[in-house]
Every structure is written in structure tokens, then in C-alpha cells.
């Protein structure tokens, strides 16, 4: 990785990489709200450079991280950084960030934390609570609460030759939208993702890349 901080540089870069996945490529606009130690000490650690680098698809060991802000300008990625408070110290990790990304007609937001040693965790996507670690290829989807939904999705994934590492389903109420997070050992191919998106009761879905440890 490129220094100087695994939390503030490598982890921040990985969070940028995950946010990029929400819009399927380098966003045109990004709003980055930094919380806690990210806000207080991020500047000196290159957190701003690392997040922008991640948004452009650079990995944590890419030496271009140093020049990421300049490159973003040339690539027409308009970014804005804000220092804010995303929650209290009990519930919100000291290195947390909300990243809102826009690309063409897509606009999404995620809340993520850098846990140390470059490990990251996404706790919210578009306001829905999720648990995504960057250590797996992950499919995140919101579906109507129909019977057999898990079986259908698991079937598509199995047909694609993929192995499910973990699967979590949460819903706010019976009959309400179900939020499904599937962590996979291998990367899903485009066909599997298209098959899942084609299901009439899937409202939306994201494929998040494995971004490291």
C-alpha cells in the first residue's frame, strides 16, 4: 500500500472503491462527509486523496494516489469534502465517512468506516442498514418480500458456478422490502447480475467488488 496510514489512506481508498461500485464506474460528482478522526486528521494522512483515488478505481498500492486530486480534475470528477458529525461516539466509528456519488442518472450514498489495518465496513447504503466487509465480492439488493425469493436468487448464483460465503436478509416489517446481502467467494459475472436484476420483484441491486483483506 501507499502510506502514510492504513486507516486513513488504504482504508479510505477502499471505501472510495466501494462507493464507485454503487454507480458502476467513476462518478461525475461526489460529496464526501468526513466524521471523527477522518475529519480531524484526514488532511495530513491524504484521506482526501485516497478516497478520490478509490472513486477513480485506483487500488491502495497505486502511487498515483499522491496526485489523485489533480488527476480527478483532469478526469472531470467534481468532488466536495465536508467535515461533519455522522453520529455519537458510542455508535459511530471514529473513522467514518458518508460518500454520495452521481453518475449519469444514478445517485447513491453509502456510510462506511475504516476499522484499522486497512479493513473497511459499510453500514448503510441509501439509508438501508447493511453489513458489507470489503473482503468478499458482494451483491446487495432490495427486493419485495415475496416467498421463495432467496431460493430463486441462490439458484441463479449456483447456476453461475459461484459459492455463497454468507447471506443475510433483513426487513423492516412483514411484507415490506427485504434487504439482502450476499458475500461470494468469487466475482459474479455480468449474466448472473443481469438475471438477478431481471427479477420483477428486485427493486435494485449493486455488485460491490472485493477490495482487499
Amino acid at each position, binding site marked *: *500500500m501507499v*502510506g*502514510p496510514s492504513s*486507516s486513513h489512506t488504504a482504508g479510505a481508498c477502499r471505501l472510495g472503491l466501494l462507493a464507485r461500485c454503487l454507480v458502476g464506474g467513476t462518478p461525475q460528482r461526489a460529496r464526501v462527509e468526513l466524521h471523527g478522526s477522518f475529519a480531524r486528521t484526514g*488532511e*495530513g494522512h*491524504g484521506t482526501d486523496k485516497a478516497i478520490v483515488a478509490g472513486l477513480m478505481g485506483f487500488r491502495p498500492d497505486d502511487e498515483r494516489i499522491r496526485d489523485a486530486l489533480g488527476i480527478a480534475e483532469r478526469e472531470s470528477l467534481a468532488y466536495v469534502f465536508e467535515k461533519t458529525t455522522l453520529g455519537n461516539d458510542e455508535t459511530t*466509528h471514529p*473513522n467514518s465517512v458518508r460518500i454520495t456519488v452521481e453518475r449519469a442518472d444514478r445517485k447513491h450514498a453509502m456510510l462506511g468506516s475504516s476499522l484499522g489495518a486497512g479493513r473497511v465496513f459499510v453500514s448503510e447504503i441509501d439509508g438501508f442498514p447493511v453489513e458489507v466487509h470489503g473482503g468478499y465480492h458482494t451483491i446487495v439488493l432490495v427486493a419485495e418480500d415475496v416467498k421463495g425469493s432467496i431460493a430463486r436468487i441462490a439458484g441463479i448464483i449456483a447456476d453461475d458456478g459461484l459459492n455463497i460465503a454468507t447471506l443475510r436478509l433483513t426487513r423492516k416489517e412483514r411484507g415490506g422490502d427485504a434487504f439482502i446481502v450476499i458475500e461470494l467467494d468469487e466475482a459474479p459475472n455480468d449474466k448472473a447480475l443481469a438475471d438477478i436484476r431481471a427479477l420483477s420483484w428486485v427493486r435494485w441491486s449493486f455488485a460491490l467488488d472485493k477490495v482487499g483483506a
Partner: protein
Amino acid sequence: MYRSIREAIRDAEAKHIPLSQLALEVESKDQGRPVAEIRAALKRALDVMRGAIEQGLTGQHKSASGLVGGDAAKLHRGPAGPLSGTPFRDVLARALAVQEVNAAMGVIVAAPTAGGAGVLPAVLTGLAQAKRLSDERLVDALATAGLIGAVVAERASLSGAEGGCQAETGAAAGMAAGAGTELMGGTPAQVGHAVALAQQGTLGLVCDPLGGLVELPCVFRNATGAAIALAAIEMALAGITFAIPADEVIDTMGEIGREMDVRCRETAGGGLAATPTGRRLARERLVQIKKGGEG
């Protein structure tokens, strides 16, 4: 992945294999990749570690703020001290070297973090150089270090913002002590004692970087962290045991971290960062970074 040093030692002893082999087998199973691939990845990490040491020892690296840099070269080529010509001084120089490269946004291996990245490569490559040990042995030692680091991550923390410097250079000292002990022919039990001996010496260590920059005292904490790791290796190999098991020392580190004042957890609000000189330097240097603009 193991959640306990004790369990790992028990399994290694039962199988009559070193902890490194156990770590490689477990990692191979977890990742679904052959051991050879994992060894190859560790060898690449070793090469990056060596690259950082080489670069740092040239003394050409200055950090973004200019607060640190060039000190590794002083130990490498500078005036003699009582430890000149010993592996000890060489290890200190290597630890500073990696961390000076890190502060300059150079390429390093987080081990376990970037802020603590100097300790492990310094101790392992320094010992290997002094004792003429092969890269094969070094790769094994890195696997052992990974096993120890994973246990610390599970039981305590590897984040200065969560647990202070004891979770960064402290964890790194534990990893380096354990891995170095195996590298020098120590038994799995001796590895456990080395981890405990190193980490007991860093309990309570705060994270207090000037201006929040991973520079001062971080660069020097890596050298002192490496010194603690060497002390632990020497004691463990001499047959000295530590009565509190490594797992419990690690748990204690986690507890102390959770109780630590937020000012001493990487927020630059306490410790050396809050001293009159620390505040003044941070103010001046942050202005300089902003003036410097894009690097």
C-alpha cells in the same frame, strides 16, 4: 483463522509443526488457494518491505510536512554509538527507514498498519541479514506474524483511533517478537511468550501524532517498538517465560484501548501532540502542507 494464540500453539504442538506451517495451512484452507500461492504473496510483500528499507536508508525521503526524514541514514552511516556494528542498531535503522518512506507517501506493506509498518520488516530482515537466513525462512516468519496479527485484530484492535499506539506499534512489536522468535529457531511456546513479553511492554501506549500526521512520534515509535520486540525475542529464546498468557495480554490491550481518552486515540488532542511545541510545530507544518498544494 485462529482467535487464540493458545489454541494455535496447542495445534502446532500436537502436529509437531512450527506455527508458520500451521498458519499457512489454515490460510490456504480459508482462502481456497494452495500454500504455494500464499507463500508467493508473502514473498511479494517481503520484496516490497525490502524496497522500502532500501529507499529509506538512502535518506532521500522527506515527509509532506518536513517534520521527519533522513534519520534512518544517520543510524546507517552516521556517528558511532555503543551498539554500532550490532544487529540492534541495524534493526533500528531499518525501522526508521520504512516509516520515513511511509510518511512520504511511499509504497510500504501495512504490518499490521501503515503507522506501525516499520517494526516487523526491520526485525525480520535485520535478523535474517545478521544470521544469514534464507528468504524461505523469512516467508515462514511472515506467516507466523500474520497469524499473530489476526488474533490481535479479533481480540483487541489494530487501529490507533480505537486503541491507541499499543494497537499499532504495540501489535507490530508482538507480531515481530513472535515471528522473530520462530525465525531464530524458537518453539511455538517460546513464540507465545515472546508475543506476551513484547506486548506487555507497550500496554497503555497512546496515539498522539503531531497535527494528526503519521510522522512524529510515529517514526520513532517504530524504532522503539522494534527494540522492544528484540528484547522480547532475546528473553524468550533464553527460556524466560511470562506468567500472563499472550491472549490475556492482548485482551488487556483491547480493554485499555476502549477506556483510553479519545484525545489519546489519533485525534491529535492529547499526548505529545498537545504539548506547546507539538501544537506550534503542527500549526506551522500544516500551513506548509497547504501552501505546498498538490504533490
